[in-house]
């Protein structure tokens, strides 16, 4: 079922290893980094909005 005979065969990609893994590596990097950055941005935005909301309600209470 599995096409490859050994792990080193798989990694060598018939001599195209650099190109194949270069493509997959950068794709994987982007598809991991983008969610991390987007989620971090979401967290920061939420925290900032929460601070603003608190400051506002404090001002109106005074």
């Amino acid at each position, binding site marked *: 079922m599995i096409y490859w005979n050994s792990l080193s065969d798989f990694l060598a990609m018939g*001599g195209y290893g650099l*190109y194949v893994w270069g493509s*997959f590596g950068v794709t994987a990097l982007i598809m991991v980094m983008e969610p991390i950055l987007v989620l971090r941005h979401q967290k920061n*935005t*939420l925290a900032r*909005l929460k601070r603003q909301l608190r400051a506002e309600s404090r001002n109106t209470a005074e």
Partner: protein
Amino acid sequence: MKDRFNLYRFASPATFYPLAGSLIPYFVAVSVVFGLAGLYLGMLVAPTDFQQGEGYRIIFIHVPASWMSMFIYLVMAFWAAIGLAFNTRLSGMMAQALAPTGALMAFLSLWTGALWGKPMWGAWWVWDARLTSELILLFLYIGYMALTAAIDDTRRADKAGGLLLLVGVVNVPIIYFSVKWWNTLHQGSSVNLTKSSMAETMLWGMLLMAMCFWMYSIAIALIRARTIMLERERHTDWARAVIAGAHE
């Protein structure tokens, strides 16, 4: 009258925000499942290509990334048309949430295209009609993002960006055909990236990876849309409730 009401209810951020929030985990899960299945078929099971050797395996990300980069631009133009026609707030947010992912897909398509071109054509970059069009598509994404980022007023940013998207989507076919003509005149590369007849497992692997990229894009765009939504609607009751209830 009732239909109209429902349409507006769905397009209202107050309903969309929690709905999107509960859908995101499913899109992530489906994306991971499709991705693993696609990688298993494409990288482990599929046989080698007799013309291109193992180098052809770049197809499993190159083609999905190219498809998504074009598809996302069309979806953005669709939202832009809805936004300009019905003046819905949601459409502008969706278009802006999709743009960075679309641009990254265009970049990935170029990057993998270059890494595929080097062993196949002997050059990192060839002025092939499709690669050139993809580069121009990336420029269009960058123009859209630069325009919306330069406008502070969100309503104007949405509408101006939407208009640019509609102008862009009308121009994409013209650009594509002119580049194609230019390429045939100047004797383009003779090797075709997707020409060779594909084995069935290869095709399935590619389709699964395309589904994975699709679901990934939806999930990312929904997360981004939720952040934009909260930021813009921060003075409304529902947004205040969400913000107050959020964990630090």
